[in-house]
């Protein structure tokens, strides 16, 4: 584990993108935050009630959400990327511009899982959480659009905006009281009849947006603005966690009136999230995932796109998110695979016996040599999955 301290962060700001092997002598510990110890190589359990509150079922990859259902618990492995994210979050301070982290890596190496572990970590340390399940939902899964009355040419997305506000409300129940104590800066005139006055709790904006879908996109912008303002004034720390963040600079499927596809900068929600990513506010951490989903075409068998941040964010996106700390996710090491294997065995999840010996009596079948839990099975699971976490889990699922 290579701790990132204030030195690494400021160096990153000056140089541009910072390489992973820049180390510091020791990291600063900011007093009021991050008490829990995150050690890589250990299993990390998330309490089920907390997971429900954080809406983990929709945010985690579907296989892990099913594990939540079947095994009755969410246990994930803490790996180096999570430890790095946790130590980066320790550095967040009201004097420093927001710390931008980009999780990148090959398919199935744990980007989304690390993001959700960080969200849980933020919950435990009483941060405010702005979590977007996938930026592709804003650009590609837009059911209905409305032209914005606030800025000409911008396109509102009522259903996604309401979903974002509901998710925000659900995930921030642990700091809802703190948020209610924070007051709005100015009068918000949503429309001719609806308005939120000055010096009112900012949670009213959230309620307003949920109750009126046609105002929701503007409410999202307002709540984000208030969060940034109050973070600057050191009232709370904010974690902005966006999965598939490179989609904010990618392709859209939203058609304008003249039947051309709108660029993402024309969508209000995309603009609001980009403002959250911009480093003009302090006391926050922005965790983004660069995912190949945006760029890769499943039907194109000739081209293989790269999974590096520059390739996925594009020139424009990359310039916007610079300077950031890139955190690479990788395949399992043997010890990590062993940890997961032992966990599955302890939960009785690995059940298979070698089929061709089924004519043998049960007491022989229970001998280690015939089980997926045997030494042979343990090794083969690692090699067949090529140490890729996703394929490892898939192999363990049906065995």
């Amino acid at each position, binding site marked *: 584990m290579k701790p990132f301290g204030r030195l690494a962060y400021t160096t990153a700001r000056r140089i541009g993108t910072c390489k992973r092997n820049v180390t510091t002598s020791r990291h600063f510990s900011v007093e009021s935050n991050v008490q829990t110890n995150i050690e890589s190589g250990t299993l990390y359990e998330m309490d089920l009630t907390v997971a429900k509150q954080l809406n983990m079922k929709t945010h985690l990859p579907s296989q892990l959400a099913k594990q939540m*259902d079947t095994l009755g618990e969410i246990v994930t492995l803490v790996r180096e990327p999570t430890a790095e994210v946790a130590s980066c979050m320790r550095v967040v301070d009201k004097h420093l511009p927001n710390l931008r982290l980009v999780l990148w890596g090959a398919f199935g190496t744990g980007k989304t899982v690390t993001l959700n572990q960080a969200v849980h970590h933020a919950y435990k340390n009483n941060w405010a959480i702005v979590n977007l399940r996938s930026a592709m939902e804003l650009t590609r899964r837009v059911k209905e659009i409305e032209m914005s009355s606030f800025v000409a040419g911008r396109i509102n997305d009522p259903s996604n905006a309401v979903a974002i506000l509901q998710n925000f409300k659900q995930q921030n129940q642990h700091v809802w009281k703190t948020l209610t104590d924070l007051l709005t800066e100015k009068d918000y005139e949503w429309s001719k009849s609806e308005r939120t006055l000055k010096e009112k709790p900012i949670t009213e904006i959230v309620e307003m947006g949920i109750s009126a879908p046609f105002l929701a996109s503007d409410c999202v912008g307002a709540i984000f603005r208030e969060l940034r303002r109050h973070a600057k004034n050191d009232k709370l720390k904010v974690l902005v966690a966006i999965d598939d963040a490179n989609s904010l600079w990618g392709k859209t499927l939203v058609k304008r009136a003249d039947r051309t596809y709108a660029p993402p900068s024309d969508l209000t929600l995309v603009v609001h999230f980009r403002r959250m990513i911009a480093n003009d506010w302090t006391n926050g951490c922005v965790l983004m995932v660069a995912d190949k989903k945006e760029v890769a075409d499943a039907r194109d068998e000739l081209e293989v796109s790269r999974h590096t941040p520059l390739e996925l964010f594009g020139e424009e996106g990359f310039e916007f998110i610079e300077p950031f700390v890139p955190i690479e996710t990788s395949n399992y090491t043997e010890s990590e695979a062993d940890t997961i294997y032992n966990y599955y065995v302890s939960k009785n999840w690995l*059940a298979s016996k*070698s*089929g061709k010996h089924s004519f043998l009596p049960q007491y022989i079948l229970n001998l280690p040599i015939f089980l997926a839990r045997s030494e042979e099975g343990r090794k083969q699971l690692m090699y*067949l999955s090529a140490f890729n976490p996703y394929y490892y889990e898939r192999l363990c*699922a*049906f*065995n």
Partner: protein
Amino acid sequence: MTTKLARIAQKRWISSTTSTSNMYDPRVFREPITDVQELRKPLDVDDERNFLFVKAMKSDATPVFYRDHVIDKLIRVCTKDGEKETSRRNVHSALEIIKRRQYKAWVKASDEEKKNIELDPFVVAKKGIKNCHPLMKLQGVTRGGTTYQVPFPIEEPEAEFRAMKMMRDICRVRSKHGVTHFKDILATELLAASQNEGSTISAKQELHKTCEANRAYAHYRA
């Protein structure tokens, strides 16, 4: 349309054996060793395989720890349009679904009930297929212009195939309109069949009833 003369000229006869054509020249190629323990043993010095080529290993003969004859055959039977990968994904997903359902039941069960719940999806699937094995088959025999459905005895491999085919056809019909996927229906069928319930078991029992009803025609067996 070739005439009889032309056919003789081309030296093609209607063969009575199952399959004689082979892409591999039998003088030059030998079967691969699929068992890892066997593979580790050194070959005899005068073994002919030292001097011959080896056929390519089939994709369902690889020495993985979850290699199972019944499941592999089920994958082959459910393959459509040569898309074995899709079929493999479906069958393995069905096994996963079986495992999840059994696991949930196992977690809730009391200690005595726990012993009766089988968590291994391979064992459940094999038991399900075994329970669906028909004991006889009906074959059409034409006598004097009428085709009679005559009950015939059946070998184990064919019984296994027929069981899988019945199950596959039922699952395909049910998943046709896309609301439920093939893997979910296959999982339900296998789980039910292992308890001697479900549509495939009923289909097998219908077959047995028809065989019993047509037992008079057994005299037509050649």
